[in-house]
């Protein structure tokens, strides 16, 4: 039984000091993050170039999404619509093309590395080597691949293939449509599979080992263990990987921006983020803040929609069904009580 004094002490709260200490972060965060974020939304309703101070309502969105305009953008609206849709397509193609091989590769490696039966030697070494590409900055990676896959006959890979007699003329690794997309998919996959693998490994190692033991005793094959135990239990981690990769993929910027021939931009690998940057910074003499902001806002909503979709898809179906049943039962009970009214009395 606590004395009055003890109870009194317990009621003293030190929490407010905690708030004081995190206050600087929030001040800075509001000033440098929240306000620019809100400002992006505001800017998306304003004009482009010199007309940056004119309010034009939803015209930027109209131009980007449908190529029409009510404030006389004319050809600009049409051109920007085509480019925007193309960049959106590029973004999805490059993301999907890197995510599917990446998750397959990471999953296979994660399962092998965590399998107690396989006893792979030098796991630590492989983990480090596979994670390594993620540590190198994107600029160095782009420079490395640009010099390896330079598309004239002087490029290392082209030179090798040509002298080996495999190809007659150099492959256009940097400007070709599917060649350049393939290269970026490969680079992204190569940079990120180590990261995904480590995440999936930690997920697998967090699973209850008694389930695997029980499966072994029951004589399940490793394929069965994978399909019936590992995969279903790994679902939350997979969902996490999917959502983070999707957010990262939709905002993919560095490699597509840097992987280009000289100063000429490749239209097949221009992602939405690159499009946003170009209109924000690289339009002379006046930047197109309106288009840039509107494209950011559209990207934001696409991310929200796809994210919610992924969550809805991956909801635990049994749990959802049970919840539904419980609800139906409660409803029926209520109806019963109402229907029978005073009869029971």
């Amino acid at each position: 039984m606590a004395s009055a004094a003890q109870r009194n002490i317990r009621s003293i709260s030190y929490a407010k000091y905690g708030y004081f200490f995190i206050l600087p972060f929030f001040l800075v965060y509001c000033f440098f993050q929240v306000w620019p974020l809100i400002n992006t939304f505001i800017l998306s309703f304003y004009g482009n170039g010199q007309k940056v101070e004119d309010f034009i309502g939803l015209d930027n969105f109209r131009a980007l999404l449908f190529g029409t305009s009510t404030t006389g953008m004319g050809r600009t609206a049409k051109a920007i619509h085509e480019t925007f849709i193309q960049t959106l397509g590029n973004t999805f193609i490059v993301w999907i093309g890197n995510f599917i091989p990446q998750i397959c590769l990471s999953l296979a490696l994660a399962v092998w590395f965590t399998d107690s039966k396989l006893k792979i030697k030098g796991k630590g070494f492989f983990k480090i080597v596979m994670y390594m590409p993620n540590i190198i900055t994107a600029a160095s990676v782009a420079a490395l691949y640009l010099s390896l896959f330079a598309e004239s006959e002087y490029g290392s890979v082209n030179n090798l293939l040509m002298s080996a007699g495999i190809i007659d003329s150099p492959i256009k690794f940097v400007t070709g449509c599917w060649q350049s997309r393939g290269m970026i998919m490969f680079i992204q996959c190569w940079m990120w599979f180590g990261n995904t693998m480590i995440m999936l490994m930690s997920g697998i190692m967090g699973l209850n080992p008694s389930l695997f033991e029980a499966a072994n005793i029951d004589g399940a094959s490793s394929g069965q263990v994978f399909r019936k135990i590992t995969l279903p239990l790994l679902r939350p981690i997979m969902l996490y990987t999917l959502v983070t990769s999707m957010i990262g993929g939709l905002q993919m910027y560095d490699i597509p921006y840097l992987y280009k021939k000289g100063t000429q931009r490749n239209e097949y690998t221009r992602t939405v983020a690159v499009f946003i940057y170009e209109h924000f910074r690289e339009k002379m003499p006046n930047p197109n803040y309106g288009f840039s902001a509107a494209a950011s806002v559209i990207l934001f909503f696409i991310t929200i929609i796809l994210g919610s979709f992924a969550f809805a898809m991956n909801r635990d179906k049994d749990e959802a069904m049970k919840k539904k049943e419980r609800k139906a039962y409660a409803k029926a009970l209520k109806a019963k009580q109402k229907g029978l009214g005073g009869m029971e009395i």
Partner: protein
Amino acid sequence: MNKLKRTLALVATLAISATAFVGCGDDSSSSTTSSSTPAESSATEESTPAEGEETAEIKLPSGGDKMTILAWNANDVDPMLKMWLPDAGYTEDQINFVNFNVGGGEAAAQYDQYFLGGEDVDVFMVEADWALKYINDDAATAPMSDLGFTEAYFAGQYPYTMEIGKDSNGVIKGVSWQAAPGAWCYRSDLADSYLGVKSPEEMQAKVADWDKFQATAKEVSEASGGKTALTTTLGGIWQAFAANRSTPWVQDGALAVDDFCNTFIDLAKNMRDNGYVTDLNQWTDDWYAAGQTDNTMGYFVSTWGFGDSILLTAAGGDGGATFGKWAVTEGPTPYFWGGTWMCVSPKTDNADMVANFIKYFTVDEASMEKYALGKDGGEYVNNMNVMQKIVDEGSNSNANLGGQDQFAVVHENAKAIDLKGLITPYDASIKTAFLDAVNAYCAGETADAAACIEDFKDRVAESVTDITVE
């Protein structure tokens, strides 16, 4: 005790938050100090060896704390200050050099940010491509006449550099200390074996205009069995060709598309389809590497491009595979490529120093000659008399060009450049869009010349929203 802790926590919190805002707010301290010490500033004025008759005409205020110079790299400003400061009797303490350390194309965005901050600015450097953005803006640049310079002072400058520095009313607001006329460099050994050409003069006769250029390209291609292209990139050709335009790109706020465009499209298509030009792009590793093979025999090069930037690297460096096998000639048309201009902010508070600086590098021939010869690697200064003198003396010889003096060649070109006042603030974007469209057409992405023009218009409509594109 508790109170002390709380106070300490509060102070620490405020201190941490304050650091986050250190970069914000404008630096008004310099202006307050300058206004509060009039005695000191007038003393500086007297000790300045500035010429009496000019300081008298300066309409802008003097006596500020420091002269602030904005630029995107230190390649020019450092050697300039090194020479000017001792000669003018100023010290480094009086200079505030803000180096943004970015590419020239990104500098405008940095400047806009800086100007918004309201900090001190006296002189800033601009590139031809976006100079008009500031020169046409009276809030950003002051007329040179406010510093006591009339047009007569700049009589020795190459005419085209003056054109770029004028705003839409013809007022001089930007001046350049360097000229960047271009020329065409070629492999003299290949020219000898394929064309039988022995001297730059003979070569010039074979590339004197664009028709001859294409005919010679055909000759080279046939003689080499299709192996050697006359020049390396369409970008280089376009750099020179774009200088031929006889009407502005933008008229009455609308994009002007005319025969000029079609002429270039035909030329580009012809050269590319027949292998008269390689499909390489400028500023790539391949572009440099091609210079060490027999796949190309020419590069378009400007005054600054004879060193590491273009030609020396293309030759494989000092002692490289093709080092010393090059020669230079004027090429099909006079053109310029690059260069830097100086503008003065109307908010300057050091007009006397600024005037001295501008005089030293753009008016005074003796100091300009000193700079031309004194700067590491030499500078092609923006004065016809000075350059004529240097060329006449014949002291310059370039080992990569087999001892030829490139200044003698570009000097002729520079005098012939005629811009006819055609520059618009949108030129950089429009020219890039056109080259991109032509490259796409040559790569087979658009079907014909008409589609290429449509593609070009779409590109311009997308990037330049301030003009109409029908």
